[in-house]
């Protein structure tokens, strides 16, 4: 009896450590984005005779993209609620929906990229496009990593169900996903919205 209590106490402490560590990690990742944002702001006018931001971006398109990501984040939040209620099937459905929306987001982003590149406005064109592609693609890369994580979680939930360890991992995943959402809001504002002004 005492043993299990102790084990439980240890588990809680270790959960606490992991969560705290994960928050610090997110902060460091945030700083990577901060550096890229700073670079983007510096490079925004460095068009080297090429197109500038208000000639390139298609705001309605990006708005749809944004909505996809926001919705996926919302569903991800619901998924965690389902996990806390130990509703295994709901969790899996939630994960799949989150993933599909994320995939839609990525597909739209890639479409935008290939469109730009086909017009001759790739990252080699100017300092501005370099900064734009790198910032947005870094976010996209994070989304891809998130998708990979998501697949692993689907596999895990269907295999072992919702154990305390799974619950913790799902929570961390949703933290990551929301974080990417917040970063995207900044990209949307600073790159696209201010960009078309």
């Amino acid at each position, binding site marked *: 009896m005492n043993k299990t209590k102790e084990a439980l106490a*240890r588990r809680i*402490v270790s959960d*606490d*450590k992991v969560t*705290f*560590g994960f928050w*610090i*990690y997110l*902060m*460091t*990742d945030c*700083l*990577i984005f*901060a*550096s*890229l944002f*700073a*670079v983007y702001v*510096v*490079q925004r006018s*460095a*068009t*080297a005779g090429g197109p500038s931001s208000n000639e390139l971006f298609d705001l309605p398109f990006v708005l749809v993209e944004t909505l996809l990501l926001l919705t996926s984040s919302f569903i991800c939040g619901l998924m965690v609620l389902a996990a806390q209620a130990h509703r295994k099937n709901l969790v899996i459905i939630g994960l799949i929906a989150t993933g599909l929306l994320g995939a839609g987001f990525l597909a739209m982003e890639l479409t935008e990229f290939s469109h730009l590149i086909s017009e001759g406005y790739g*990252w*080699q*064109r*100017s*300092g*501005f496009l*370099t*900064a734009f*592609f*790198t910032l947005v693609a870094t976010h996209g890369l994070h989304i891809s990593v998130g998708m*990979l994580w998501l697949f*692993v979680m689907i*596999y*895990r939930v269907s295999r*072992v169900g919702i154990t305390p360890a799974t619950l913790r991992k799902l929570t961390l995943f949703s933290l990551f996903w929301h974080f990417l959402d917040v970063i995207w809001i900044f990209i949307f504002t600073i790159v696209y919205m201010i960009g078309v002004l």
Partner: protein
Amino acid sequence: MLGKLSLDALPHDPIMMGGAATVVGALIFGALIVTFLKRWKWLWSEYFTSLDPKKIGVMYLIVALLMLLRGFADTLMLRAQQVLSTGDSQGILSADHFQQVFSAHGTIMIFFVAMGLIFGLINLLVPLMIGARDVAFPLLNSVSFWLYIAGVALINGSLIIGEFSAAGWLAYPPLSTLEFSPGVGVDYWIWALQISGIGSLLSGINFLVTIFKMRAPGMTLMKMPIFVWSVACSMVLVAFAFPILTATLSMLSLDRLIGTHFFTSDMGGNPMMYINLIWAWGHPEVYILILPAFGLFSEIVATFSRKRLFGYTSMVWALALITVLSFTVWLHHFFTMGAGANVNAFFGIMTAVIAIPTGIKVFNWLFTMYHGRIKFATPMKWFLGFVVTFTLGGVTGVLMSVPAIDFQVHNTLFLVAHFHNMIIGGVVFGIFAGITYWFPKIFGFKLNERLGTYAFWCWLIGFLLAFVPLYALGLMGAARRLDHYDPSMGWQGLFVVAGIGVAVLGLGMFFQVLQLVYSIWKRNENRDTTGDPWNGRTLEWSVPSPVPVYNFTHIPTVTSRDDFWETKQHPQADTRVPFEAIELPKNSGFGFAIGVLSALAGFAIIWHIFWLAGVATVAIILFVIIRTTGEHDSEIVLSAVEVEQIDAAARRKMTAGVKK
């Protein structure tokens, strides 16, 4: 198939072949010794796969000290060149090779010597000082270590295959862009730093969590040993600064790989942006190194003055203030950029302001010594040497914080003298003091004091001889990174003095090696028989030396600052608590595998062998997925009986070999 790699990548000229032969020879020699002693299995199971921070710490120290020898060998070449190469003589190195050598020297000394030594001591000391059995994430800790080794492997690999960067230790563009550095040198630089830098970042997170979540019951923040505080501040800096380095290196690498225009000199690229970014990391980096050294000195001064550290609270505040301020001064590295008088004035003033908390710390140490019963053991000698050299360096630093003066000495040997003053007189002396002081705790016997004293004097005198002339040379207008100068400048005499200084430094290192060998040989005469050889103050001295795997049989309850010291003043009746079972992390080859794969991936990208880079990256991802999703027990349990036996054996061993 093999990208840019071909047989031409092997070294051709005699000096470079010498370098390659030394590395290969050292590796073969090491491997032969291990084979001869039949120690491979032992090495693998006791060290390479160990998750014990004490073992990881020892590995950091060994590798970093070897790298110190490598970095020092570089300076022998630099110094010889600058002594000889004037007038008709071209010295011993070609201009390009000279550039590679100072770039390698700076890079190795900062990333693989200073960082390695600091992380080694942090691993060894932090868990013990906070009364914990381990770090927060032992497996991650081992990954960090092996990423550091991957960096070491790459930077030394550049001696054998290809070349190293000739763009200085910070690889400023446009020189470091593809246009002006088409070879693989800069790529070696990028990937050695990128990989080991990610390791440092992970360590930073790990130790922050360790310090904030794993302190023994009763140890409030203001009861932490000051070294732990200094590490906490340093790790905050790691967490804030290293992401900037990661991002910056990635951008430089993209410029070189896929033709982006971050830092190129055309198409809207902006080289000055790189210089801003790299120093936004670089200035905090120097504090990442010096703050833990401050912490080490604080513990040492208190112990050898047999007094409480004077002004603990102000020490903590000074550390915190330096941590914050260190992000507001980066522009002092390029006052000459032309940012305008007001910008320069702001950064100049901020730089001068940092001297205030630093000064507070120096005075606190002096007041700690005041009226103390000072014992001049070697760690204390290093401390006193530090006070002298560090103050000198501090004064020249404040001097250069005045933009108008900096315009005169920017990029001269005056600056080189200044930062070696801080780094050798500050960081390196601090680490040597720390290693001497905690050596008995780690290995169970003290280092020989007499040889240590010789080494100290050689370092102090050698340092002054080697670097004070550089102040003069700098004021006479000698630029840094010079491979040749005209005799009419009248610099040669001072370069000769500096060269003699380096020889004296070499003698100092010789004494240190001798000290180590001699102390191991005579270890039974210098056994630490009590676990507390210096009459210490903090928790690590309360356990046997060398420390058993689990650190503490019982997690201590802390009631005051310098808890162990207080306990010694008011001995309590020995209330024996029964031993209990202890859970420890199981060995794992995971970190090793990640390190090897990362080095492979880095090597592949450097040489444009993209399929290999892809394979290695996918392998890393798979390993991570398998490791984090698998349900395996990653812990072993020592039963109460086993703990009792280990404890008794550790205590017996302390006195066993001692001759009566």
